[in-house]
């Protein structure tokens, strides 16, 4: 074509591929070597599932998985609930002074570096004599999950024009009926993606958990970390690959939910 597309810039496709390679190559290599039949990280000597079996048989990994799932689901649930209420209040409630400040405050946990959140929480728990363990992790996770749950819910609630609730009321719906039959179904996708996002974030957290964990409350990332410290094994590769898979599945889920529910206008 003589008239090239104005949007196109040469070389950008190449750079994109470079980026994607950089992003994926390490994880891919890691995943591939999790099937390596020998303990070497260098040489490929055959395919095996042994390391995955080992992962599933390792009691400390089992315990950590259980811990991680418990914490992630509880924290994500609490955070989602709390975030939902806040989002509803901020969008549908009467405007008030300090609304922007409130919004900033709810997003505050993302703005503070994790290392500081971790240490501050640790000192706080120690100061109030709160025993470190599952509960302390749960609390810390809930805090930093709130903004992650909040953002998708808030943007969803905000995208719902005022006229929908007015239309419902106009058609004789009480406030409760309006919420139940109109608002809630419309923001449900936001709630689900908020929950899943919070779940992933909690499941993946290392730094903060590392600070506020107590005996017996080791989570998967902590287990992986302590295993890596001792030395790389295909078992770590296998475990990482599994966690990778879980993340990918959850993200795809969020994506699918969002796509299916966004009305094409």
């Amino acid at each position, binding site marked *: 074509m003589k008239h090239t597309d*104005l949007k196109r810039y040469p070389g950008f496709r190449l750079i994109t591929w470079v980026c994607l390679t950089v992003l994926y190559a390490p994880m891919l290599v*890691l995943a591939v070597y999790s099937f390596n039949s020998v303990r070497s990280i260098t040489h490929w000597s055959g395919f095996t599932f042994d390391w995955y079996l080992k992962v599933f048989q390792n009691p400390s990994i089992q315990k950590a998985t259980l811990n991680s799932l418990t914490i992630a689901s509880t924290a994500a649930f609490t955070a989602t609930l709390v975030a939902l*209420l806040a989002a509803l209040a901020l969008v549908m409630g009467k405007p008030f002074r300090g609304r922007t400040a*409130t919004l900033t405050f*709810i997003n505050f946990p993302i703005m503070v570096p994790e290392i500081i959140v971790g240490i*501050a929480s640790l000192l706080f728990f120690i100061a109030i004599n709160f025993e470190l363990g599952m509960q302390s992790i749960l609390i810390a996770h809930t805090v930093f999950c709130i903004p992650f749950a909040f953002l998708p819910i808030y943007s969803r609630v905000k995208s719902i024009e005022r006229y929908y609730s007015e239309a419902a009321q106009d058609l004789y719906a009480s406030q409760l009926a309006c919420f139940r039959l109109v608002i809630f179904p419309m923001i449900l996708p936001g709630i689900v993606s908020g929950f899943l996002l919070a779940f992933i974030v909690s499941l993946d957290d290392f730094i903060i958990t590392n600070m506020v964990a107590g005996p017996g409350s080791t989570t998967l990332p902590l287990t992986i970390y302590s295993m890596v410290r001792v030395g790389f094994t295909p078992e770590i590769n296998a475990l990482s690959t599994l*966690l990778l898979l879980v993340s990918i599945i959850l993200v795809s889920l969020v994506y699918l939910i969002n796509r299916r529910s966004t009305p094409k206008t």
Partner: protein
Amino acid sequence: MDKSLPKTSALLAPAITIILVFLAIPILTLMTYSFLQPATYGGIEWIFSLDAYVQLFFEEDFLTEEWVFNSDYLVIILTSIMLALIATLCCLILGLPTAYFIATRPPSTRMLWLMAVIVPYCVNLLIRTISMLFIIRDQGPINSFLIWTGLIDAPLQIAYTNFAVTLGLFYSYLPFMILPIYVAVERFNFSLLTAANDLYASKWASWQYVLLPNLKPGIIAGCLLVFIPSLGAFIAPDLLGGGKQLMIGNLIALQFQGSRNWPFGAALGMVLMAMIFIVLIVFSKRNSQEARS
């Protein structure tokens, strides 16, 4: 008549309370600790002291026991800033074209490309760092491959260097750069490019005079999203730096573990927070100024 939903304040209360009690107060605690004195094996003595902050700049000389200027911590802070800046720059250089490229795909395939960028963003930071460590080690695939090809005969030392840390930061936060720029490009009104072209601008003139200025908010957001977490990074320097390349995040952690100097750790934390807030405030000021004009 009040036509709004249940009391706004009641709905906001849980979120605000949780963040207030379990984050704001802890950070205030941390701040308080920075003004106290350390106890021998960790913990604090309730004596007011500015030593922790003094220690940032001065140290007691081994021989004379006098306080003399010490640039070491400043150097760590500056090194952290440098590493974070370099990582940000690398992310920008690769991320900008990538974001642009993805956002200009036809809608049918655009989402797939975007997903490709989002997935790593949601994968455990720890695992990503580990996989990076895995491939850059002396015995890792990169070195093995290079040796196999005969390009080099001894492994390149990549792991456990500042380079590795930067690489790790770049790798960890690249999606943070791509996403906001992607959003900006997607919002960009491409008829402006046509208009520029119509008004005699060549491709690169359009890029310079029309695209870049309009993508600026996205670029700034991306840079902040990479720079800020990079500055406070802990995992990348810890694993990829081999415990030898400290960034301010590790220095802080160290004060609560090996070195057991809580007030100093708290003071470092305050410095980190201050730096981040300054950056945020500067940019949000500029942004709102631009939005207003």
